[in-house]
């Protein structure tokens, strides 16, 4: 029971580490390339037209995310604008080979929300300060800039009831027990749907052999 609870349900990651990174690299989806290129122009040239294009695509989605999290409309609006301002301020830190703008903005919006609504800090990793012997740095390079695009495709293939629990786990800021109560299904069903969905999503990233 305990052993089960503690075992990482991600043992399948190890084989992926051993495969050469080149084989994993698929062509990035055009939209990710386009958005990453726009952010590149913001970083290099402070290009306002490129920024406006990013704003028009992402600000309404960031606002939608914050509304899902239960933020009042005016706060969601303010934080969405703030998130995009952060993008302008931090554009030079973005590495288009390792990330996508959508995922980066998700992490920015998540942290703004915790700060503003929960008035807590979210202890973060320092990306350059790991413990010695914590694993080869090359592992970090395996994060694919197009993971997000692959996951979007995989999400479209999931049954609706599985998408629902994944979304709620990410957006509802509620424990699984409360999600179960609100959906009127047993807690075990929430957990098994989530587990099924996550294993399919991981397969989409090529982690399972």
């Amino acid at each position: 029971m305990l052993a089960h609870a503690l075992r990482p349900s991600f043992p399948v990651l190890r084989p992926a580490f051993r495969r050469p990174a080149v084989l994993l690299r698929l062509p990035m989806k055009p939209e990710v390339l386009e958005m990453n290129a726009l952010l590149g122009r913001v970083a290099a040239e402070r290009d306002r037209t490129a920024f406006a294009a990013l704003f028009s695509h992402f600000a309404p989605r960031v606002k939608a995310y914050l509304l899902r999290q239960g933020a009042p409309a005016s706060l969601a609006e303010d934080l969405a604008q703030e998130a995009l301002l952060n993008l302008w301020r931090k554009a030079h830190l973005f590495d288009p080979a390792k990330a996508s703008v959508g995922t980066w903005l998700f992490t920015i919006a998540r942290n703004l929300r915790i700060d503003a609504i929960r008035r807590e800090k979210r202890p973060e990793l320092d990306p350059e300060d790991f413990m010695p012997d914590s694993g080869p740095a090359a592992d970090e390079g395996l994060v694919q800039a197009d993971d997000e695009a692959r996951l979007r495709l995989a999400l479209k293939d999931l049954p609706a009831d599985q998408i629902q629990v994944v979304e709620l786990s990410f957006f509802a800021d509620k424990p699984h027990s409360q999600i179960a109560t609100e959906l009127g299904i047993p807690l075990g069903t929430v957990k098994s749907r989530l587990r099924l969905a996550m294993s399919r999503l991981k397969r989409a990233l090529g982690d399972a052999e």
Partner: protein
Amino acid sequence: MIHHHPSEDLLLAYAAGAADEAISLIVATHMTYCAICRLRGKKLDSLGGALLQELPPAALDAGALDNVLARLDSVTPYERPKRAVSRDGTPAPLRAYIGGDLSTVRWRKMGPRLAYAPLFKRGNVTARLLKGVPGADSGAHSHHGSEFTVVLQGGYTDVTGGYGPGDLQMMEDGMSHNVVADPGEDCINLAVTTGPLKFESLLQRIAAPLFGF
């Protein structure tokens, strides 16, 4: 070498921003020791990005873009804060809470072999550092709520196995264990509890509230 990792649920809660500050500190501290979980975390961030992209866009206020464009000149480019480098291998996420390295912690004695240092408390959730000399014994205890532990130095053994630097243990409500510090250097752990501990010995039951446990 890390043997004990956070469960999928715990990592998901961290990525989603649903985990509270103390649990997030546990996960972030473990990740500084564990490349596998750093990668797991990044994949979950990508899932957050994918879900965000799939959301139906919400209408912005009129003039939102103009408002932000007008502010672009007044914001300064972000610079990463200058990092104070740890001299004794203190995990970076913990440094802000300790106010320095592990060597600067002011320990409070709990008997001859154990010591603790409170970090913070939010509601029922408490984060603290615990230290035991080799062979020190926590006494059998169970939990009201869950207990999360990450080893920072040395190691300990309980009925479930051995734990060394970076290993994360989660004990759920009602599970009981007795932790013994391994031989060698002092064992130092980051421990987060979501409710008071329940000690089995009468003496500890009387003493625990005095130390805020």
